């Protein structure tokens, strides 16, 4: 992320006039708002002062020696950068939110350092920009692709590389398209001969001997060609279906494999919906373009050019000016189609908006039906819905009426060329300069020429949809996993001594979640982790599981840096129970042995017993074979959680992680699970995050995290005596319990 913006010459002059000799510009950020007006000013941060410059004028200068307590605040529609000047709060500047907020967030840290007189440490940001550096436009949602700046040839080159093995099949539709086009153009020639020789009979000479056979041949040719073109069409569709589906399958598998290989951090940045969209919709868009649209466009273009040549040569041979009449209406027709499309789009968006509103209202009202009924607001709900549907109906009516009027007109416009040809051709016919056969031929070619026009107007839209989707697909395929194994990862058998050394980490570098955290845990200890939500508890756990790599510092298990242990090896020796357990569709047995697919039934039962799950599983209709998950038997929250514990236990991991495993359960169930947990934690290094402190009564040590720092660390008694955050939490919960 850019922290050193350019100064305009005027601004630079203003800065030079004000700055001292030994001042260096360290950072320069834009500020955008001055009271109620948008401006394009600069905040210049040197090793000594902050300069606020706008339109070549120095508006303010603050020396770091007088500044302290920097903050940024998000206001409404803007943000502001504050600091204290001689201890008095002052608003240094205001700026628009999205683009500059992360920059100023870093500047807060940088300024704190500068105010301490520490100009040596220069802050930078590894956070990627969300806007194109070249044109300033935003990247495609959730990506780093600028559709305006990405090189088109690069895109097509990569695409070509992906069609390996499918190229012949993809070439086929192009070939058949050309062939069937050729036939389209040959048939009118035969028709011409048929008309001129036999139907109108221009030639005054008597029929040849074998005229019957000759005519039969021509008629047969016409029928034969149309049969061939039908067959070609069938073959083409079949081949397109195969190549299209193979391409989709190939791309989807590739994409899914890659998503599974990516590290947690890259996956977490994208929502499930976004990933599903890319794997499903974007791949479909790319496939449709490659196997359907592209051959079709190719065919249209070939057809158009071929038709053009044919018509022109024919015209030159005849010496008439028929082609003029074919081409004259084309610009008007294109204009008409374009205008019509734009109007249609506007109306369709309008009606889509109304439809969307109806859907939303319906969903809102139906899912809230209990509330509606309990407050007796049925009438209001009906009114609201009626209003939506009425609006939608009105809009749809309007659209339908208009479309039904305009469509025939559009058809008429498209055919207007033919009418002109008819008129002019007939004039020529009467003059004797043109035969009926030739007239028919011209007419057929004209209609072939007009057909692609309808499609041409859709090409830009389809190409832009394709490049966007393809870019999104490629972005995932080319992404490097952030957390990757070293060249030769080792397999270690872990004992469970965990030490965290000066770890600093943030999901976005401008906003560290953990700051300089150090911690030593001996094998077999149980550590309870407490703190407010968002204080960094889960983040610490994620780092220990190596879902992410720390920004600074390191984590070691048994004295070995996490980075040297293969991820596969590491995770196979950890058991994790999360707050929300996901059970996959399948039997209870499959879910328990998820981490160890070849576990024996004996081991499954042992794990289930240890998790206090055996008894309830035996009460299920089909015991361990009962299907659970999305479409199966629905287990209660406590039961699911016990299955999850069994799953975490089956491979007897030396490190166990419980991330609020009991938070969503009632006290009774928690008790049962607590008993299960108590059994597990012996001889295992356990990290347990909990809001309910009773869960942690057996913990050897309690770790209190506050705003990314370790606030307190020690045994239950030690912390109570400290009377700090832990004491406060215990008191609050006991009091709440007593009040009950």
């Amino acid at each position, binding site marked *: 992320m850019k922290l050193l913006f350019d100064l305009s010459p005027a601004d630079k002059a203003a800065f030079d006039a004000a700055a001292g000799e030994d001042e260096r510009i360290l950072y320069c950020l834009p500020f955008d708002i001055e009271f109620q007006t948008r401006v394009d000013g600069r905040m210049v941060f040197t090793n000594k002062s902050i300069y606020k410059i706008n339109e070549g004028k120095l508006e303010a200068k603050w020396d770091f020696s007088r500044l302290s307590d920097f903050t940024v*605040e998000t206001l409404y*529609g803007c943000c502001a950068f504050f600091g*204290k000047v001689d201890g008095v709060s002052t*608003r240094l500047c205001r700026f*628009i939110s*999205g683009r500059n907020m992360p920059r100023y967030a870093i500047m807060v840290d940088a300024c704190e350092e500068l105010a301490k007189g520490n100009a040596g440490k220069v802050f930078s940001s590894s956070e990627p920009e969300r806007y194109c550096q070249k044109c300033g436009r*935003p990247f495609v949602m959730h990506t780093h692709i600028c559709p305006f700046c990405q090189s088109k040839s690069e895109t097509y080159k990569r695409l070509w590389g992906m069609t390996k093995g499918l190229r012949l099949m993809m070439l086929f539709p192009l070939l058949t398209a050309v062939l069937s086009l050729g036939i389209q153009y040959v048939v009118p020639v035969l028709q011409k001969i048929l008309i001129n020789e036999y139907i109108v009979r221009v030639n005054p000479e008597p029929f040849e001997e074998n005229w019957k056979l000759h005519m039969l041949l021509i008629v047969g040719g016409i029928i034969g060609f149309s049969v061939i073109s039908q067959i070609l069409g069938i073959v083409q569709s079949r081949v397109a279906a195969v190549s299209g589906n193979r391409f989709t399958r190939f791309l989807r598998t590739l994409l899914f494999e890659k998503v599974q290989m990516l590290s947690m951090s890259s996956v977490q940045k994208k929502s499930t919906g976004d990933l599903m969209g890319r794997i499903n919709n974007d791949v479909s868009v790319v496939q449709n373009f490659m196997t359907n649209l592209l051959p079709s466009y190719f065919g249209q273009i070939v057809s158009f050019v071929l038709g053009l040549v044919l018509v022109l040569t024919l015209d030159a041979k005849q010496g008439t000016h028929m082609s003029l009449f074919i081409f004259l209406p084309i610009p008007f027709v294109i204009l008409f189609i374009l205008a019509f499309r734009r109007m249609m789009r506007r109306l369709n968006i309008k009606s889509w908006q109304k439809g969307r509103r109806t859907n939303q209202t319906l969903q809102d009202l139906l899912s809230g039906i209990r509330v509606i009924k309990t407050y007796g607001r049925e009438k209001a709900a009906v009114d609201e819905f009626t209003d939506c549907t009425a609006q939608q109906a009105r809009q749809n009516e309007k659209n339908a009426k208009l479309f039904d009027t305009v469509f025939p007109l559009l058809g008429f416009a498209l055919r207007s060329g033919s009418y002109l040809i008819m008129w002019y051709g007939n004039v020529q016919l009467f003059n004797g300069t043109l035969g009926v056969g030739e007239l028919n031929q011209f007419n057929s070619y004209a209609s072939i020429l007009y057909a692609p026009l309808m499609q041409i107007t859709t090409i830009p839209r389809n190409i832009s949809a394709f490049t966007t989707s393809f870019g999104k697909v490629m972005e995932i395929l080319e992404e490097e996993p952030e957390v990757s194994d070293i060249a030769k990862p080792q397999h270690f058998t872990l004992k469970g001594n965990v030490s965290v050394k000066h770890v600093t980490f943030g999901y976005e570098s401008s906003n560290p979640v953990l700051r300089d955290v150090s911690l030593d845990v001996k094998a077999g200890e149980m550590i309870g982790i407490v703190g407010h939500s968002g204080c960094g508890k889960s983040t610490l756990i994620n780092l220990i599981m190596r879902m992410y790599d720390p920004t600074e510092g390191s984590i070691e298990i048994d004295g070995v840096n996490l980075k040297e242990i293969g991820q596969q090896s590491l995770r196979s020796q950890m058991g994790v129970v999360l707050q929300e357990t996901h059970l996959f569709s399948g039997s209870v047995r499959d879910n328990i042995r998820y981490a160890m697919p070849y576990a024996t039934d004996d081991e499954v039962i042992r794990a289930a017993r240890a998790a206090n799950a055996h008894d309830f599983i035996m009460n299920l209709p089909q015991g361990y074979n009962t299907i659970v998950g999305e479409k199966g038997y629905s287990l209660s929250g406590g039961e699911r959680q016990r299955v999850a514990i069994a799953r975490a236990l089956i491979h007897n991991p030396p490190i166990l992680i419980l991330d609020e495993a009991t938070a969503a359960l009632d006290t009774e169930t928690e008790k049962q699970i607590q008993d299960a947990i108590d059994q597990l934690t012996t001889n295992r290094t356990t990290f347990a995050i909990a809001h309910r402190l009773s869960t942690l009564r057996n913990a050897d040590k309690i770790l209190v995290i506050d705003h990314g*720092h370790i606030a307190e660390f020690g045994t239950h008694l030690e912390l109570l005596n400290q*009377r700090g955050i832990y004491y406060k939490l215990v008191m609050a919960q006991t009091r709440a319990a007593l009040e009950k």
Partner: protein
Amino acid sequence: MAETKTTVQTPEEAAQATEKDLFAHRISIDLTPDNAKFTKSSGGLISLEVTQPDGKVEFFERIVPVRAFPISSPEEFISIRQPDTRMGGRGDEIGMIRRLSDFRVPSAGEAAALIEDELGRRYFTPAIRKIHSFSEKFGYCYWDVTTSAGRVEFIMSNPASSIRTLEDGRVFMYDIDGNCFTIEDPAKLDKSSYKKVEIYL
């Protein structure tokens, strides 16, 4: 990095802290010209001296006014709060002003003007006067408009969800940067501007 004030206390301090102190919350009071004196600080922000019901006088170097109903009643129910601290959540509410007009009396000094000015800086929602161009490319909408804050180009991700029409006819438009623009009355826009935004209303 400056020392951030957390709730961690030294053992001696904590030992003196009774349970009552640990759970004490600030109680918000109604602010009137009688108990609240707003002044402009030397840093250009608002300071407040407030007299609590028990007669205790508190001084706040900087306060932040926040509207409870920024859209429906921007002049009423204004919460006067302590600023957000850097690490912590939202600052506590010191008190609430029922109506800003209560402070438009000579005894309140320039209080109303001060608060109005500060609110004007907090809520930055330029009003759109003219729409020069609107185009949709690669999944984003690009707008070029003249607003009360000058000419602005902004980008919107999905107009169907980023443009909201209120019951009173006002239109709010949100861009991808978190900025907000308003159209006070779409019917009063010139014809070509209106046509550009019309389909989303």
